[in-house]
């Protein structure tokens, strides 16, 4: 694991899941998983289907609770917090399927997060307009979200999450359903979230080339256990990962 900023003499603000276990009726969905995410970095969370990736994200964002272990946000134990409290505290997420507020306009979708986090209506609107511009959604501002094309709706999911001014963003399979041509857009979006919004991003995806390209570190789960962590280069040559996840074809391909 990367050390947590020892040069500054204390731990950097981070999102930490420590010793997480989650059992469903005898099935060990997660077994002693520890993961740390700092601001201004992108960490990939990969693993085969059923490895426990979404369960871990659900536990970190309050939609599920661990059987053992704890979640800390910048030094505060948030293990028992509700999802909305975590949302207000700076922890945002997107979902596998598009989760937008279908009958609200695109602009209103983004305003919700800002309003819920205490912004005044006028500030929420200017925040939304700013994000509409950043994500290239301005032309759709007054369209009900239900009428957005799939690719745009995924962008809206990110914009909605950024509306809360998060410090950490957990993205659950943002590339699912995108065609190859749309992936570079997603890459630059994730980079701008990290660099310009100074957000720590935890990225779950099956698209290995996306993960390898954009992540600073990668965390690999298999059957609820951590089997490897490291830089993309380290993960690429890790035999366990190759066997468990990438298959005999080796790294660089996409698995899905």
């Amino acid at each position: 694991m990367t050390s947590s900023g020892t040069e500054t003499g204390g731990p950097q603000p981070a999102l930490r899941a420590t010793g997480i276990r989650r059992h469903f009726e005898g099935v060990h969905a997660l077994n002693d998983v520890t993961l740390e995410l700092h601001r201004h970095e992108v960490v990939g969370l990969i693993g085969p289907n059923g490895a426990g990736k979404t369960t871990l994200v659900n536990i970190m964002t309050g939609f599920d609770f661990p059987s053992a272990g704890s979640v800390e946000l910048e030094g505060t134990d948030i293990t028992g917090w509700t999802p909305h409290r975590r949302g207000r505290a700076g922890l945002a997420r997107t979902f596998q399927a598009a989760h937008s507020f279908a009958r609200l306009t695109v602009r209103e979708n983004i305003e919700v997060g800002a309003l819920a986090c205490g912004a005044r209506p006028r500030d929420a609107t200017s925040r939304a307009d700013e994000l509409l511009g950043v994500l290239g959604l301005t032309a759709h501002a007054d369209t009900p979200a239900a009428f957005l094309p799939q690719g745009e709706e995924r962008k809206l999911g990110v914009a909605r999450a950024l509306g809360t001014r998060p410090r950490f963003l957990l993205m659950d399979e943002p590339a699912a359903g995108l065609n190859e041509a749309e992936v570079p857009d997603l890459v630059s979006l994730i980079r701008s979230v990290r660099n310009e919004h100074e957000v720590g991003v935890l990225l779950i995806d099956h698209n290995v080339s996306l993960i390898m390209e954009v992540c600073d570190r990668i965390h690999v789960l298999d059957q609820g256990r951590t089997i490897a962590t490291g830089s993309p280069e380290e993960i690429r040559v890790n035999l366990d990962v190759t066997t468990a996840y990438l298959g005999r074809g080796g790294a660089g391909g996409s698995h899905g």
Partner: protein
Amino acid sequence: MAARRAWELIGPVLLVAAVGFVGSLTSGSMEFQFRSVLVIATIVVALHVFVGNSGVISFGHVSFVVLGAIAAGVATTPAEIKARSLSELFPFLLDLQLSNIESLVLAAVLGGVFAFLVGVPIMRLSGLQAGIATFAVIIITNNVFRNWDRIGPAARALGPIPETTGFLQATIGLVLVIVVAYGYQRTRMARMLRAAREDPAAAQSSGVNIYRQRLLAFTLSGAMAGLSGGLLAHLLGSVTTEVVFLDLTFITLAMLVVGGIGSLWGAVVGALSIAGLNAFLAEAEREVGVFGFDIDLPSGTRLVVLGIIMAAVLLFRPSGLTGGRELSWPFARRGRVAPGG
């Protein structure tokens, strides 16, 4: 943009004013039917504030209506009559004597307080569970009122209650709840609640405390339902617990669904059209003259026709007459769809 938004309020208000005006030109039982339509619409708009914005069904709102009706009735029935026919009432209720307007305020306050108390446990529920729990509330409320003669008329009729719900009060009452409903819809709280209606998980992760927003809307909606109960008591002149029970629960929900759940315009249109049709058919069963023709329908026609029309609307327009959308600005160059959120 501002004109378009204002139209979402002005449109329903103009429609209500027109109904009130036309009704005031009628007389006899038709005139009473028009006033009833306005009061029923008040209940439906109250219901919309919670159901339309939260997407959670409530079978319990008539509890707040009956509380408002009995409170307004007990507070305005002459003391000497109460002493004679409702002598079991708590002494402070026997002595309570309020003016018409004060009784309406009391009805609204009690409706809101009751809704808040009931909402504290129930607003944690969603979907079918919330529906069943709110249904339990109306059953419990009805049984308490029907059997506890210290707080109301129990199984008897309460009255005579001063019949002050004329066209002016009925119209003002309805316009008032429409204005409050519209004002609420423009708030950040309502926006958060509608987001939760569309997608609870995304709303929560955006920081929306769904429980708190639902409880707030339920309380406001309960206060408005209480007010409409007061108007109803002063319309009928006498109230029994059976008049304000399941029939009213289902017909008001049906009006909301037929109009289109999710928009204020849908609530107003659904209520006025179905209540209006209901009133007309009730008159036609007793013979009514329309444009020189005498219409005399056999007894029972009213419910059959109403049932068929409601079923037909839902078959052919499942999202209701308005599609759950607000009234769109009629002078736009292109037919833009106003979002119903």
